[in-house]
């Protein structure tokens, strides 16, 4: 019997696995998809919020501020791109000014460092491309931008390196109470476990219902985005918010750690938590709202639209507790924004709850807490020269838009959690993330995946199960058959 089974390997599951890997425990993570970080974690605003937004006294307030600090520490240690660029909440009229003042007070109450209200002149001096209609703004210097999927990967990889077992392609279909714990059916696995951490994102309510009486209901809220070419990446230097409303923090405009500009999201209730389509109406809304903050965005430079689903529930706060009716079953549910920002702090809560449920926490003698990867394009000429001399594969540029080399792709394919798809490689070392969106490098990445993993090119997927790219060879009998 294992000690802990974590269900779901988004950033919450991965952060929990990372925390638990510090202790002498048998921990298993089961993930429905063929990779980690495939749900809400990979499709959001990629912001580490400062923490002025949640109402004081809530879990969200405490865990956001704590998570903001811890995320930066972990990102620095695990070589995850994360930049503290600060955020601005813009006020356009008197009502907004009042909201900004209220957010300032909340910020102070929540312990957010350095928050202050800026005058219109101060805002313009800081961000000349903002609308001239801005009357005031809240500056929160501790807000940061991050690569959310790389954060999740780094946490999961470090957990696996330190003994946590990850089982991919393992959707949980049954949880049965047994003597001293639970029996979890997850894909081909049947796991007997003393405790369970439910980190199943938008599906956490359904997972809860497999083990315990109904506790909360997810009301998935989808947000759509534009990702702009790097030519637009320097339009603003801070995360630019508008005043929050009932649907969330509104449409933001922000640089990304990869040098692009992100614009979005809207908020739309959807029936299916896996429905990540984009809509014409949603994108129209995003453009219209964003223009209020930053009028000069050139949508001809859009390189991708995407959407992600927030795990909003029928409860206002995060749902973080041991199920009262199921001992040792810990819910980490309703992790909507600021979930990514809070992840390490939520994981620490989970560990506390597990201890309370009787899991004995004995710290390991040694913990390998290091991670780094080659980022060719960020090296100096001298470093590039030396690297290619050492391994010529770093001299072969595969992705021309992002300058990603064969060496980096090979590294990713032999990393702790090897990817099996083109998008899996993209999440690890970024080929295909640029302006041509993999049009040129896709076939070449596919070839390298096939070669390194010893599979045929036809077996290489675009992303999740079923996302086949090619249908056999040309010149076969029956046209496009097999």
């Amino acid at each position, binding site marked *: 019997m294992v000690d802990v089974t974590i269900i779901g390997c988004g950033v919450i599951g991965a952060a929990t696995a990372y925390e638990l890997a510090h202790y002498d425990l048998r921990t298993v993570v089961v993930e429905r998809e063929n990779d980690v970080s495939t749900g809400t974690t990979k499709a959001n605003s990629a912001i580490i919020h400062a923490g002025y937004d949640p109402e004081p006294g809530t879990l969200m307030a405490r865990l956001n501020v704590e998570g903001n600090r811890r995320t930066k520490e972990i990102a620095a240690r695990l070589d995850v791109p994360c930049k503290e660029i600060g955020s601005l909440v813009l006020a356009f009229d008197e009502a907004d000014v009042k909201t900004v003042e209220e957010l300032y007070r909340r910020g102070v109450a929540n312990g957010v460092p350095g928050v202050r209200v800026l005058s219109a002149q101060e805002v313009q001096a800081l961000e000349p491309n903002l609308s001239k209609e801005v009357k005031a703004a809240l500056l929160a210097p501790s807000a940061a931008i991050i690569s959310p999927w790389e954060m999740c990967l780094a946490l999961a990889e470090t957990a696996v390196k330190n003994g946590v077992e990850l089982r991919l392609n393992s959707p949980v279909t049954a949880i049965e109470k047994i003597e001293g714990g639970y029996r979890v059916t997850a894909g081909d696995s049947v796991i007997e476990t003393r405790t369970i951490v439910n980190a199943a994102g938008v599906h956490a309510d359904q997972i809860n219902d497999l083990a315990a009486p109904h506790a909360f209901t997810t009301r998935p809220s989808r947000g759509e985005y534009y990702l702009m070419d790097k030519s637009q990446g320097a339009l603003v230097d801070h995360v630019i918010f508008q005043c929050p409303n009932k649907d969330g923090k509104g449409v933001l405009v922000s640089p990304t750690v990869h040098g692009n500009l992100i614009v979005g999201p809207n908020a739309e209730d959807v029936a299916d938590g896996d429905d990540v389509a984009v809509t014409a109406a949603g994108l129209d809304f995003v453009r219209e709202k964003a223009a209020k903050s930053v009028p000069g965005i050139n949508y001809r430079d859009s390189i991708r639209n995407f959407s992600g689903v927030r795990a909003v529930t029928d409860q206002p706060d995060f749902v973080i507790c041991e199920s009262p009716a199921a001992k040792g079953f810990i819910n980490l549910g309703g992790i909507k924004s600021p979930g990514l920002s809070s992840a390490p702090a939520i994981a620490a809560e989970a560990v506390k709850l597990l201890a309370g449920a009787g899991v004995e926490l004995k710290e390991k003698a040694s913990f390998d807490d290091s991670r780094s990867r080659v980022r060719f394009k960020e090296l100096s000429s001298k470093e*590039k020269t030396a690297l290619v001399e050492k391994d010529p594969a770093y001299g072969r540029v595969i992705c021309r838009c992002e300058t990603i080399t064969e060496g980096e792709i090979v590294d990713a394919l032999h990393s702790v959690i090897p990817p099996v798809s083109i998008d899996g490689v993209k999440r690890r070392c970024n080929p295909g993330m640029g302006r041509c969106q993999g049009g040129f490098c896709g076939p070449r990445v596919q070839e390298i995946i096939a070669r390194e993993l010893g599979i045929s090119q036809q077996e290489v997927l675009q*992303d999740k199960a079923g996302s086949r790219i090619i249908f056999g060879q040309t010149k076969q009998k029956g046209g496009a058959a097999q």
Partner: protein
Amino acid sequence: MTEYHDLIVIGGGPAGLAAACAAWEKGVKDILIIERDKELGGILNQCIHNGFGLTYFKEELTGPEYAGRFIKMLFDTGVKVRTDTMVLSITENKEVHAVNNFDGYMVLRAKAIVLTMGCRERTRGAIGIPGDRPAGVLTAGAAQRYMNIEGYMVGKRVVILGSGDIGLIMARRMTLEGAKVLACVELMPYSNGLNRNIVQCLNDFDIPLYLAHTITDIVGKHGRVEKVVVSAVDENRRPVPGTEMEFDCDTVLLSVGLIPENELSRNAGIEIDRRTSGPVVFENMETSIPGVFAAGNVVHVHDLVDFVTGESQRAGRAAADYIAGSSAAGGADLELANGEHVNYTVPQKIRLAGVDKAAGVFFRVNKVMAAGTVRVMSGGVQIAAFKRQHMAPGEMEQIQLPRALLEKAQGTVTISVEEANA
């Protein structure tokens, strides 16, 4: 270690090959072509259909044959070539930083540079097609590479969005390989492709072309495209509710435009024309940086490779003149402006000293016209006019402005098109 060359050509597609050969013929004996792919020839290598060379060679060739003619010519010169080599940056003082897996990281210096990096395809993100994001949505050029270079089928039931030439060519190509092409859908009320491709690639195979339509939804919940929804659009290109048609398909090919690849040019500080997305060039294809020339699809997207060749030879010869110290220098005598119905011109600037007998000007119109008159005006005076039958945005126009006429012009020369009354 810095390596020196008289001329470095960045890109070994049709433009780079023609520029290098022309510079060699004009006496430049130290030329290096840097090509990122494993072979010379550029995108022509995957264009295995015929129709290339009718203007330049007066015969019908396939893409690889057309490229092959120039590669053969190149082999008779002493032009050096580095393939599988990526240029990472160029600088204003003509330093070229490049890398490959046999020479490593290189810093090269040149007296002159010709930029011939070509163009890339617009993607789904650039046009914001709503719907799911499954596998099976790819650009027509990527599909062409999979099929013609790698030998793989990319789908069995196909809908093509956009009627650009690559999309039309791929409609025929996929049909010949046994796929069912259900429809070609074009947002505009006219096709952006060459008329001969509409006839030979769609009509001959009974593939319907839906003009003034677009894809309004892509459905694919299980990893691969399952269905698309196509709707008619109004005169503002907005979908008209109630006109939806569904196509069960596994593949969507996009042929929705090409964009010159100018990241190297931009980072070097070269002035870019917002309308062409390519460098602003003089009559001899020199960019805003003296000694840096550009030609082919990196300057503006051409319909026919034959014109790429001509333009690139001009750039190659001009680079040779620059190296020999005999080229026109300084600012422009004349600036070309876009008048009514003209989307852009190339060149955008003219130095009279650089014009031999006449300056050739390429331009595109912004609407389909049965007939019209191209007017060239300067200082309120018409200096030339050209009658044309049938003009369309999908077909590049060319006029020759004799030097004698240009000498009468001053400051700005405006090119406009007056539509003949129907």
